[in-house]
């Protein structure tokens, strides 16, 4: 009877150990938040579009909206090029961050750790059961 209780205890411990390992999967500090210097949308660029409003008969004067400078100060202060896109960015946008490569490595380590934990728990169970048999309990 006591053997059964002990074995059940070992089962529970093993299950908890094995279940805990995947729970660490999200704790990997791989995500590096990009500094978000963008502010919530404000239409505060007063006359950045001279072409579109030039054709309007100016019955409505340009809105005197307060100029909330939502552009980060680190931005190079290049003069507008005069085109419809006033400042053409350099290079191509980097609109994709992968984490699968490093993530798969972490997952491999987790699987290995989980297997080791299962083996250790199994070994402990065998040891305890044999020990109890030997002592005749």
């Amino acid at each position, binding site marked *: 009877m006591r053997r059964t209780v002990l074995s059940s205890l070992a089962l529970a411990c093993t299950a908890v150990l094995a279940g805990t390992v*995947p729970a660490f999967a999200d704790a990997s500090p791989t995500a590096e*938040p990009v500094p978000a210097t963008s502010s919530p949308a404000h239409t505060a660029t007063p006359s950045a579009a001279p072409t579109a409003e030039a054709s309007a008969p100016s019955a409505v004067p340009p809105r005197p909206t307060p100029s909330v400078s939502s552009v980060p100060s680190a931005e190079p202060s290049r003069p507008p090029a005069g085109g419809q*896109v006033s400042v053409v960015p350099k290079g191509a946008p*980097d609109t*994709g961050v992968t984490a699968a490569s490093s993530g798969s490595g972490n997952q491999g380590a987790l699987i290995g750790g989980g297997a080791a934990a299962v083996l250790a728990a199994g070994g402990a169970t065998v040891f305890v059961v044999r020990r109890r048999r030997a002592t005749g309990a």
Partner: protein
Amino acid sequence: MTPLSRRTFATAALAAVLVGCGGPQAHQSAAAGSGSTPPPSSTSANAAHALRRSTPVRLRIPAIGVDTPVIRLGLAPDGSVQVPPITAHDRAGWYGHSPTPGQVGPSVILGHVTVGSYGDGVFRHLAQLHQGDRITARLENGTKAAFTVSAVRTVAKADFPADDVYGDVDRPELRLITCAGPRTGDGYRDNVIVFATLSSTSP
């Protein structure tokens, strides 16, 4: 070892293996369903006239299940365009030095294809758009600008067609940009660029 303890041990080992295997699959949630939403009814009564400048606040692309808030982006210190933050529910971003959607000129909106460990980005399925698909941008002043996809191009980042994307045009147009292609390091080799033209507006 008695038959009872042997059985118990076998059960313990089996249970542990089962529990261990079940964990990693929890994150594979299905991507947002796409294609089931019908395109928004076209407001044919409204001609596709250019709109006044007003910041975009929301972007809808029914064909790929996108309905996202839009933030404003500027330039990074190195002179490249800023990209939206890497978050769990990332948003699209409008490049603030480009015209607003509906103004004459190329309005540029960016979104991530993947956001690192968070999984798919808001523009994950952008490459699946086809000519004729609809895109709707809602502006801060309440107006809506509906665009129709005219072309979808995949280009190498090394050969990014800046003139085609940022160059002047004689009508209101929209550019949606994300990454694509094989992964290189922690990024991608290519960009997907969707070109769209204004088809209708509504107040």
